[in-house]
């Protein structure tokens, strides 16, 4: 059994820094590198890529990363845990094996499957799974013909199993985000399914690290106090077998780790803090002790866990129509009044043309788009960005909206500019539908090659 393992998270979401994981792997001691590439609707994009080309459907950015840190993986023994496999971890693995071979390296890669239930949705429905929307209670029949993807948030013992079989890279699809960090803890320390407090500690550690720099000084309320944010270090979990852990970062990296930077991240996307439900355990976020050790190190202990529920969460995505949005900058005397008139003119012209929408939005960026009427709008402003948006099931209507913005520059009030990106075009809306499935109906598999 190991004493302390160091797990760094180098990717908070698909589109996060491409250099952060490289620095985590190269700039100091590290046992595990976790990487989260999936947002709620990312899998639907991958599912559609795969429909067009059966060799795609995973995060290609991950291949570029592995190429850069191959020596750390094959020679230094850093293990990589990621959900980059998307809906096609097999193809991702083939590419990785080839990539390693080209550099004269051989690496063992584990693939976790069973989370993608899109191909068996009909069968599961026949077995009595309602897939009713767990937030709204809405009937699944209302979207059944428009589903793009369906993935189960599966448990983290699958990751442990892959490591046990010798994987140096573990490729999953929809495991839970905190599970990427919990998996190696289960493997290293032999934590059991009933060790609720330990599983809760690993899950809390994963929750804190899962958004990368958001716990090391990024998006921090006292931003004035954060040094060298340009060189911000990404988080490292130092986990002990007892479930006590520290969050830290590599020496000489920028950013800040304190009770407050960690505390803020604990609160991120929090619902009822005493019942944080993961596939592995139910965590009580009101239970633990937090202790700022100074020197960019915070210790957390006494995390309490409760038994998990008997169902997994399913992330379903579906086609929900089209949307478009466009912006115009309005400047000069009475800019706000002119922006309001501009919006009125555009909506009136569309109405005159017989075009109305299921939903529209009119926002004034710089004045009220984020915080509504919380602060009074100043009487004198230099400029404001008018942002208009529409949503409709009719693509033509949404594209028609896009043609009504530019004309107002010469046929509206004076001082309008900033229309440089071309006409806004209709984009598909891929919406999110959360549901539940009994754990007994989900069958995962792990293989290492």
């Amino acid at each position, binding site marked *: 059994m190991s004493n302390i393992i160091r797990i760094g998270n180098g990717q908070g979401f698909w589109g996060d820094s491409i250099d952060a994981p490289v620095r985590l792997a190269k700039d100091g001691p590290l046992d595990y590198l976790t990487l989260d590439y999936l947002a*709620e*609707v990312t899998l639907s994009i991958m599912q559609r890529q795969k429909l067009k080309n059966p060799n795609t459907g995973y995060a290609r950015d991950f291949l570029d990363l592995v190429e850069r840190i191959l020596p750390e993986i094959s020679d230094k023994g850093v293990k990589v845990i990621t959900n980059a496999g998307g809906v096609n971890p097999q193809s991702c693995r083939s590419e990785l094996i080839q990539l390693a071979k080209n550099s004269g390296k051989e690496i063992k890669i584990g693939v976790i499957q069973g989370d993608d239930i899109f191909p068996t949705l009909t069968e599961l429905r026949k077995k009595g799974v309602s897939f009713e929307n767990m*937030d709204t209670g809405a009937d699944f029949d209302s979207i059944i013909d428009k589903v793009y993807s369906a993935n189960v948030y599966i448990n983290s013992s699958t990751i442990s199993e892959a490591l046990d079989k010798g994987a140096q890279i573990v490729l999953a699809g929809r495991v839970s985000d905190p599970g990427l960090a919990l998996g190696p803890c289960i493997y290293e320390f032999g934590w059991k399914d009933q060790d609720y407090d330990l599983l809760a500690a690993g899950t809390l550690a994963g929750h804190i690290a899962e958004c990368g720099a958001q716990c090391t000084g990024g*998006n*921090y*309320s*006292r931003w*004035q106090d954060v040094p060298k944010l340009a060189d911000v270090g990404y988080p490292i979990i130092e986990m002990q077998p007892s479930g006590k852990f520290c969050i830290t970062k590599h020496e000489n990296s920028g950013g800040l780790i304190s009770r*407050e930077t960690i*505390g*803020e*991240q*604990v*609160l*991120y*996307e*929090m*619902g*009822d*803090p*005493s019942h944080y439900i993961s596939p592995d355990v139910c965590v009580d*976020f*009101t*239970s*633990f*002790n*937090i202790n700022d050790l100074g020197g960019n190190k915070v210790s957390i202990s006494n995390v309490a866990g409760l038994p998990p529920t008997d169902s997994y969460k399913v992330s379903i995505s579906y086609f*929900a129509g089209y*949307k478009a*949005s466009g912006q115009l900058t309005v400047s000069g005397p009475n800019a706000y009044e002119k922006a309001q008139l501009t919006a009125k003119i555009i909506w009136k012209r569309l109405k005159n043309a017989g075009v109305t929408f299921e*939903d*529209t*939005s009119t*926002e004034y*960026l710089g004045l009220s*788009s*984020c*915080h*509504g*009427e*919380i*602060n009074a709008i100043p009487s004198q402003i230099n400029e404001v960005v008018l*942002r208009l*948006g*529409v*949503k409709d099931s009719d693509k033509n209507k949404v594209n028609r909206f896009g043609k009504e913005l530019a004309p107002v520059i010469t046929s509206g009030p004076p001082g309008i500019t900033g229309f440089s990106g071309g006409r806004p075009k209709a984009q598909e*809306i*891929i*919406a*999110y539908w*959360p549901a539940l499935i009994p754990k007994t109906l989900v069958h995962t598999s792990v293989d290492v090659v």
Partner: protein
Amino acid sequence: MKISLHQIAHARSGDKGTHSNVGLMFTSQELYEWAKINISTSVVKQHFKSIAKGEILRYEMDNLLALNFILGDSLGGGGSESLINDAQGKTHGQALLLMEVDLPDNLSQFVSSK
């Protein structure tokens, strides 16, 4: 003394489906105890009346000296269906820190000038 919440508290927000959550954290036990009494759901509902159309929930986290608020129906539908600029409530934490409050003078030692 009249102050703005950002002088005594930290906040972070994110989305929960069609709702957003705002975690509000304090740096001293004294401020937290004051906040538990004074930063109620009704005060927060009034502050966010132009943003949150639904119910406001509040949870207490004594171990973190934090309050967690759920702002019901505050994201214009939420997720990719929403048309609004801040469809994920990323800025709602900062919005809460704009709140002006009347802090008892005996807590003035905890007020930041920033």
